[in-house]
């Protein structure tokens, strides 16, 4: 892969926005079938330009308008905001108080820095293959809950480009949810509570809610490989002291002694499990059973969400297919069927795909006589020839599902309409079809 140099961004972005950004699919997404008038036109976008110039309340009339503007401004970063009551680029002309955010996808942002207290391999903006498993587990746990508990059907998971993942929930009813309900959903999904000054961040009650139970089953599949081998959380005194801080003091001596006798995190964890599930006779009201073991697993592996990102309807979040200005990586959709195999380091960077495009272009241009002709012919399919292609395919599958759902909903609605019409218009001989049969 081509090494990425941030200094080349202006040139790279020019090429990216001219030949590679998947405008058609992008528009298809945000237009949501054109069912609601002006849905796309009232959507806020924000651009971060060169030299950190940030402009909000951008909005566009249609796909070609979007393309032209993006190519003109060459944004370093693109964020997507809410659908407002009026066109965001005209918000200054609207009477005070009348310009309101009305709908937006439900979004989640999971950031690796929030796990710094429990990962030993990296910290802050760094990630590696060892700690990436945290994201895999987070995606599995959150996605299961969104799908099975809340019944959300259209969930797009996107790599943020550096150290985390985003989720966009796009169901029609979800876009209309209030801020209070969004907060409630994040609360439902939260188990790890407390900042730096709190040692033990997970407390389970005796009644374990099915959501918690199912999340623990997911973590169990990864725990040995991730925590005991990869992170080696019981490797030495320094690391196991952190675990002991989560366990009642009365157990410390026994555990310390036995940890010395064992030789690997695996063995020590087995011992801890046994010791934790035995009824401690001297501690009043302690539950007997696997709660302690689960609390440790959850503290080390359970997803940590940022509530502020999810609760605000007007919150702006990085757009899929945006470029990360520091790493050069494209924010690509993640294939849920292959989430275990997703490798953030294999995600194409802007320099690599531009390079790929150049290579193809020069070799093909040698065959073509007319430069201009080849330019236009290739423009719409250029990304297909680069490593961006498989990720766009994942996006298209997501869009297909959205379309299918939408058609299903419309059929249902027109079905009931037809029935009512039939009841009321028995006298009329001419049948009339509802308008939305033609699409």
């Amino acid at each position, binding site marked *: 892969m081509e090494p990425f140099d941030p200094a080349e961004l202006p040139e790279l972005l020019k090429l990216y926005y001219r030949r590679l950004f998947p405008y058609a699919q992008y528009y298809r997404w945000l237009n949501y079938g054109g069912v609601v008038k002006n849905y796309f036109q009232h959507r806020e976008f924000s651009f971060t330009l060169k030299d950190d110039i940030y402009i909000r309340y951008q909005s566009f009339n249609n796909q070609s308008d979007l393309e032209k503007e993006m190519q003109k401004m060459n944004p370093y970063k693109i964020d997507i905001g809410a659908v407002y009551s009026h066109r965001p680029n005209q918000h200054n002309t609207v009477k005070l108080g009348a310009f309101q955010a009305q709908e937006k996808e439900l979004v989640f942002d999971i950031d690796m820095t929030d796990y710094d207290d429990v990962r030993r391999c990296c910290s802050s903006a760094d990630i590696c293959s060892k700690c990436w498993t945290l994201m895999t587990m987070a995606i599995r746990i959150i996605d299961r809950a969104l799908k*099975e*508990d*809340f019944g959300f059907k259209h969930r797009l998971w996107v790599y943020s480009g550096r150290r985390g993942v985003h989720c966009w929930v796009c169901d029609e009813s979800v876009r209309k*949810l209030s801020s209070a*309900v969004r907060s*409630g959903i994040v*609360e439902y999904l939260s188990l790890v509570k407390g900042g730096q000054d709190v040692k033990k961040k997970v407390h389970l009650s005796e009644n374990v*809610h099915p959501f918690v139970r199912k999340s623990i089953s997911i973590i169990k599949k990864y725990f040995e490989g991730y925590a005991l081998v990869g992170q080696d959380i019981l490797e030495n005194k320094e690391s196991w002291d952190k675990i002991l801080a989560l366990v009642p003091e009365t157990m410390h001596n026994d555990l310390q002694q036995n940890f010395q006798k064992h030789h690997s995190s695996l063995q020590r964890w087995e011992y801890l499990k046994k010791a934790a599930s035995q009824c401690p006779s001297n501690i009043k009201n302690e539950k007997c059973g696997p709660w302690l073991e689960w609390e440790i697993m959850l503290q080390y592996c359970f997803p940590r969400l940022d509530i502020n990102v999810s609760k605000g309807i007007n919150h702006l979040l990085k757009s899929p297919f945006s470029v990360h200005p520091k790493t050069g990586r494209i924010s690509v959709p993640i294939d849920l069927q292959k989430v275990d195999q997703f490798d953030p380091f294999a995600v194409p960077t802007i320099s690599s795909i531009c390079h790929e495009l150049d290579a193809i272009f020069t070799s093909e241009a040698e065959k073509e006589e007319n430069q201009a002709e080849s330019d236009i012919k290739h423009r719409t399919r250029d990304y297909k020839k680069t490593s961006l292609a498989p990720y766009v395919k994942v996006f298209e599958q997501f869009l297909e599902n959205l379309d299918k759902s939408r058609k299903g909903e419309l059929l249902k609605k027109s079905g009931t309409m037809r029935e009512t019409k039939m009841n009321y218009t028995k006298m009329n001989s001419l049948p009339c079809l509802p308008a939305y049969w033609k699409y």
Partner: protein
Amino acid sequence: MEFSGVKRRKPWLIGDQRKASYPHSLQFYLQPPSENISLIEFENLAIDRLKLLKSVENLGVSYVKGTELYQSKLEAEIRRLKFSYRESLEDEYEPRRKDHISHFILRLAYCQSEDLRRWFIQQEMDLLRFRFSILPKDKIQSFLQDSHLHFEAISEEEKNLREQEIIASSTSLGGPKLELEYVYKIPFADALDLFRGRKVYLENGFAYVPLKDIVAIILNEFRAKLSKALALTARSLPAVQSDERLQPLLNHLSHSYIGQDYSIQGNAGKISLDQIDSLSTKSFPPCMRQLHKALRENHHLRHGGRMQYGLFLKGIGLTLEQALQFWKQEFIKGKMDPDKFDKGYSYNIRHSFGKEGKRTDYTPFSCLKIILTNPPSQGDYHGCPFRHSDPELLKQKLQSYKITPGGISQILDLVKGTHYQVACQKYFEMTHNSRDPDLDNRRLLTACPVLGMYALPTMPTVGTIFKDIVLREQCVVETAWMVYMTGRRS
């Protein structure tokens, strides 16, 4: 609704028709009444319902809601005023009709300000909660349907499929007794308070809510609907108020609450400074009693204490001049320089009387504010003794106040159950030689016979209850509107 000046005979509905119009003993008040009634009936219905809601409020403060004592007293009160409450009784048409119409009349009176609405909604919710709690289980489904609430009880098979999950999610269910419980399936967004704390089982966008938890959801629905309705009513109120026959009554109804708002009270009730010491032991609530004692002993109070006590004194009638004199005298005894007092403290006193800065005439702190915010630390004497004192210390204090051991243990039990305001109410009963608030009210009424039911304090602050006592012991009271009210009846 139309009003006639002449008393008309009420339309006589036959048996089934009457039952059909009011199928339940409780309702969500979704449809306004549509019959004609006389002015006199209009007035009577409104006054009766106001009495009922006031009782609901008083009982809610004197007793812990939901307990047997509370339930039986409330039932007695509803029955006395001839409102509906029980499903199974015969010929419930009249009480239910009364309930229906009177609710809508009071909406007119109580939609006018934020305070009024909040009070009205709170009492109506408590009333609904009580009525729902005595509704037989098999009647619940039909009540929900008639109220257009789309909560379906799920079938036995559906329950069995999810039995484990539902039991594991709900803290209100005790053990594997799911066969006896009804479980309702509602869209998850309608069960926000339950699912946010993971207190309910979610599957495919639906929450599976056992009966015990559905009450909270129903009450929330009711509150939301009523709140919206009141806002709408307020907007169409000018048309109603322009009706000369209704205007005076509606004003009186809402004033019977506002009448006790001591913030706008001018000169009713004067206190002299030398009365304060004796009043503090006889009539002050314990929080103010302890602040006064600390002030006398230390000749000083910290900011929190000055705010809480200072505003209370204003609330019971101290004027600005008196307040300045009071605080200055005391602080000087603590070897403070009079000039320092003028510079540092008198500005704040004038500020709280609305004579400085943004000129807000501040009201005394409510109990909730004292209990929930600004807890006292070392060297502070403010706060609520029932909330902020160690139980042992509280016990000693109560003993020094000569409360009987039986009373003390009752109070401590209430404190343990975090019912701090009820504990304070108990303290009041103990120190005024009464165990029964009804008895006590009657005692108060005989002391000042001009007062009717409406003068019962509505407890926005503990200070107001005690102020009433302070004032009644001097029998200085506002009666102007009362006279007008009684004068109006012809």
